């Protein structure tokens, strides 16, 4: 037999094994006696596996309130309070928390639908432009004027390709 399962929440050996079907998907949780008590697993009326999965997904050490979105200042506690995120970037910041939630919430975890192609093209052209502008600055500073002329021409080409669509 394989080595005994460890508790999902602490390093002790798991003695409570739970299986619950949420949205047609099987979820398993293994807990030690103490954690099972603490999470109210022994009280069937007040227990939801999805809540537990949300919490279990967070490594206890990493799950301090230090997790904060650098773009908008949103914290993990704010999500618990509002159930909504602060800004689009939060999905990167809180990725470890979002991923296990999606399993219960959606049919799949990967987007297969429409893609805003025009906006993405615009963004990649924009990124290319800022890179070239950086190169141009450096070339001028280093007095590499032949390179600078080449970068300037490329910048003009990209700008033409973008036409009037580049608004920012």
């Amino acid at each position, binding site marked *: 037999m394989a080595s005994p399962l460890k508790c999902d929440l602490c390093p002790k050996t798991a003695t409570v094994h739970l299986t619950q079907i949420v*949205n047609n998907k099987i979820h398993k949780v293994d807990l030690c006696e103490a954690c099972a008590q603490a999470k109210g697993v022994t009280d069937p009326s007040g227990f939801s596996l999805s809540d537990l999965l949300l919490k279990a997904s967070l490594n206890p050490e990493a799950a301090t309130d230090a997790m904060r979105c650098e*773009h*908008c200042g*949103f914290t993990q506690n*704010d999500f618990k309070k*509002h*159930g*909504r*995120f*602060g*800004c*689009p*970037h939060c*999905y990167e910041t809180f990725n470890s928390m*979002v991923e296990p*939630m*999606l399993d219960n*919430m*959606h*049919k*799949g*975890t*990967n*987007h*297969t*639908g*429409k*893609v*805003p192609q*025009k*906006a*993405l093209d*615009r*963004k990649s052209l924009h990124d290319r432009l800022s890179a070239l502008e950086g190169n141009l600055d450096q070339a001028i500073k280093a007095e590499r004027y032949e390179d600078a002329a080449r970068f300037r021409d490329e910048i003009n080409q990209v700008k033409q390709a973008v036409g009037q*669509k580049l*608004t*920012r």
Partner: protein
Amino acid sequence: MTIASLIASPSELTDTASSKCAIVLMTRIRLARNLAGNPFPGWAREAQRETVFEACRDALGASAQMKKGLNVAVSELSDLEKQILVERHLISRELSGAKAGAGVFISKDQTLSVMINEEDHLRIQVLRAGFQLKKTWNAINELDSALEEALDYAFSPTLGYLTACPTNLGTGMRASAMMHLPALVISNQMEKVVRAVNQLGMVVRGLFGEGSDASGSIFQISNQTTLGESEEEIIKRLGSVLNSIVEHEQNARAKLMESDAAKIFDKIGRAYGILQHSHMLSSGEAMNLLSLLRLGIDLGLFPDDSRSVIDRLFIEAQPGHVQQTSKTDLESNQRDSLRAERLRAEFAAFAKPNFTINSHN
């Protein structure tokens, strides 16, 4: 276009020819979209919401679809105007209580509406009378692509369109149909239907969305999940669920007519009498009576072309629409009396039910 002229104009729901599919009243699709680099409305400061509002307003103002439409900030709308827009399904209740920087664009024909700074930066919506999932999707897809010309949407290759609430990730799409299901209600089968529909990953709600009741036997059925399937797949799945509900409703009607035609005729006949002669009608009661008349039309007791009258009255019997026809502020019982008066006038000239025909519906 001003809000006053929009309210006075015919809308998609109040003035369409009787739809071919009697059971599906309306099809609606909404897309949740956000602008990259900007905090979501619920977390943004007022100045940030204003910035987003202006960017969205410029993009919408430039779109062909919104030419000659209404463009208004929520703060400029009176409570009554907001209520009327909610009753026409053009804005949500959430938007009507929204803070600074919230607004709405509505197309001239009232089939397109875009809410700005509701839960997400943009909530794009298209609605059409009848069962029209494909047409509705094409229209909203086109508007969304037009807006993408000017707006940088927040998007992740794996999670799709990024939304304030993770339940809307992926396509950001909620497709729904408003269905009239009186026979399933009368024969106590709705609970069973709701359970079956839930198991198929769809949600059933009342007429005005989450938490609203199902007066008039009208229900909204929509997709529950938004990530992991393409828009077309979601729409196809919803379509097949809707078709099967239509079939169940038709079977329930046939069964009721077989086993208990007298009971059904009695309900419809009484509803007709009350609509012609009552002097006090709450909106809930009016909805239920109108629902029975609509069933009567589907069963062939009334001429087919009267269905559009009922569909218009479903909206005009709502509190905001009744209030709007009066110059003074009404108490609820005064409104009930005015509602009854308006319905008496409408039904004075309505065709009499013909109970002699043998319906095969």
